[in-house]
């Protein structure tokens, strides 16, 4: 049987919800999230792992959803941009990006957000240089990154003041 028609049934958690789906073995994780689960916030910018727009959190670690297969997510926990806000209340990073004009077209924003959530989990008090290094694998053609860096430092300060938030 060729890879085009083989399928597997996978079970995984996405943004805290459990899913069980039968998927083609060659389906990328990005396409699975976007087209099977209709979570279209994860964007596909290059499909070769350079631009970072498709970055999701895989068991809390940032990963390129375009370079993974859906079947690799079997038994794992995924967080996408849709899972960052708490209902109507946006994550401090989301609010700070808006306040600091850290997005224009917004296409790279979901990948920036997931990458930066991981950064702030690992390092609650990053320097501007730390932020730049963290997002050096996420391309943005609109902002020149300035607003994103400023927003991250601001959000980090707010989160520290609020006693941290996972």
């Amino acid at each position, binding site marked *: 049987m060729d890879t085009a028609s083989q399928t597997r049934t996978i079970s995984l958690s996405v943004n805290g919800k459990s899913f069980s789906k039968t998927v083609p073995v060659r389906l990328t994780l990005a396409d699975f999230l976007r087209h099977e689960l209709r979570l279209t916030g994860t964007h596909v910018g290059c499909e070769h792992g350079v631009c970072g727009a498709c970055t999701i959190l895989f068991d809390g670690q940032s990963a390129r959803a375009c370079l993974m297969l859906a079947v690799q997510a079997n038994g794992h926990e995924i967080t996408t941009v849709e899972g960052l806000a708490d209902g109507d209340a946006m994550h401090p990073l989301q609010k700070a990006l808006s306040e600091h004009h850290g997005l224009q077209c*917004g296409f790279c924003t979901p990948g920036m957000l997931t990458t930066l959530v991981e950064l702030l989990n690992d390092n609650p008090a990053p320097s501007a240089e730390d932020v730049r290094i963290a997002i050096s694998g996420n*391309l943005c*053609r609109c902002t020149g990154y300035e607003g994103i860096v400023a927003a991250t430092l601001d959000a980090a300060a707010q989160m520290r003041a609020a006693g941290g938030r996972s």
Partner: protein
Amino acid sequence: MSAPLNTRIVGHSVERLEDRALLRGEARFVDDISFPGMWHIAFVRSPHAHALINGIDKSAALEIPGVHAVLTMADLAPHLSDHLLRVALPSPAYRLELHRPVLAEREVVHVGEAVAAVLADSRYIAEDAAALVFVDYDPLPAVADCRDALADDAPRAHQTAPHNLAAAFDMGYGDCDAAFASAAHVFGENYWQHRGVAQSMECRGVVANLEPMSDLLTVWSSTQTPHAGKRVLCGLLRRDEDKLRVITPDVGGGFGPKLVFYPEEAVVAVAAQMFGAPIKWIEDRREHFVATTQERDQHWDMQIAVDVQGKILGLRGTLIHDHGAYTARGVNIAYGSAAAITLPYVIPNYFLDIKLVVTNKVSVTPIRGAGQPQAVFVMERLLDRVARELKIDRAEVRRRNLVPGEQIPYKTPLKTRGGMQVVLDSGDYPACQAAALDKAGWEDFPARKIAARAQGRYIGLGLANYVEGTGRGPFEPVSVRVAENGRIHVASGAAAMGQSTKTMLAQVVAEQLGCDMSNITVVAGDTGAIELGMGGFNSRQAVMAGSSAHAAALKVRAKALYVASHMLGVGEQALEIEGTAIRLKGGGGAQVELAEVAKAVAGLPGYYIPGNVEPGLQATEHVIINDMTYANGTCAVEVDVDVETGLVKVARVVFAHDCGRVLHPKIVEGQIVGGIAHGLGNALLEWMGFDENAQPVSTTLAEYLLMSATEMPPPIEFVHLESPSPLNELGIKGVGESGVIPMTAAVASAIEDALSSFNVSITKVPLSPPDIIALIHGAASKNGV
């Protein structure tokens, strides 16, 4: 300088309307649109830069389960009014007719040209099948370099064309021969700015769906020009205007190439009409490298004549512009380059011979800056050369030649492509340069440079001036309507592609209608929402759509106040609009909601409309502004060059500019910083490589490098000057492209300064580390070191 604005929304950095959905993953880009039973297209594209097509065998592809059809031009022809996309802007300069085919039939002329379309249940299956479509090609010699293409014995980029000259014209005024003959000094040089790729983070994409009950074909396209696209599609598909609608969904960046109508848009639309199935095509990044238009390859052979003081007497030369394989837009980039080069300066005599040359590379159309970065690069390089030869400070040479502030408005002898005179309408260029250099510490820099050199560091400071033509007319319509629930609906032909267009329009309208941004909905880029439209390009939307939004909002405001005065029995002058209500100024006492006014003017059978006005609380305006308004600026860049590795670190960027009245300070700065990042990439990183057979050799983002966060300098240091344009009510000048325009020039100036002890001369960009090392070694061997 303008008087302080007495405004509450306009001129303030209010929250963007766009942000919430984008931040929560709830925005709707073209690939987020989906229909049950949707088919997907993968295109079969030419692997050859130039070849004849002997035949196309679809049989193996059609055997793949899930494949519905493989379409070639022969299949599409009966359903189209034309095989060609005739979208070129008019010009008498054309020497060849080079319209793109919808799909290539007998000949392919660049790698990536679409030959066939595979329709299948999924993109995965469509790509499997596309690999099985056998196209029998006869490869032909290809033209890769636009200079070589002009030789009599050069291969023809199109087999049946008599030559490779797409268009030719000249531009100029005065008497260059006389000026050069009597000049104290004449300096000449060849310059080259390289081709690049727009690289919007979202590639192109199209979805089409035919609604059988209404026979309405809806096309969602990631485009900057939905109204122009609709016009082309109505013609091609022979559909009435009310049976076709083009919608621009959220767009993940445009930067120029998405203003062009593409073959893929035609194929998706016609296929949806042919099969009655919803159809989607999403461009992948490799396709973006080979099928989306590119820009910037220009070779300039220039001479400048100056007097002993370095004052410019004349400028002349030739420009060879790489046009790519087809005319996908016009002669506009080369025209824009030729018309931009003189602008900041008083240049009494000017002549440029311009040739647009066909090559076997993807077509060339505007990318952010549209010919202006190249022109500024050449002009500023020439002025640095004059400064060096005459041993005058680089800033001083410019000071002696900038158009003096007191001569604004300055009528140049140049004309725009539509024949309007180029008049520099506002600004003070010498003051702008002085502000930039003051901030950059120009006077103190030589001492810093010597101190750094003593520590083994090579630092340099460069500068560049630009004047940008913005606000291309003649109009961009905006309608403003207060619905019966009090909500304000704004629609425009302006297209949003990430530059905050919806926020900008809402600000202008809110200022007149209650100052409540949350009460405003904006539709930008939907042919179903407004009849006419031009779209997003040429730094025009705040100028053109902003002016129409202002005019329409004023009309609606006047009518709302008039009707309310009748409803409340008080004079209009006593009323104001605050939030969603019309009330006595300062509040208190009687008031009426906008919703009630809208209901009242909607009319009741048999009753008077209050105030006897025309029904409806709405206005549509098409403010006509034919003349362009000219923004200006000065950029200073400091670099630190590692002479061992050739690595250039951009240490500082100072940007002094004047875009007239600023509607939203953060949006303006964001536009400029993004442009600066793009321009720094053009100066140092972005290389779209082709081999001698015109085969592209950089088709991933690992080979074609963009500025990432770690290459960017510390935050840009701004100086905002604000001289309102007299050409529009709001005093706006465009700003979307300004950041990119002076960057390659300023970076080259800075690197040359850093390497002044090596006496290097920079005449091309981009400059990679090996280029820097070669410059140092080349200069060393030339100087006999």
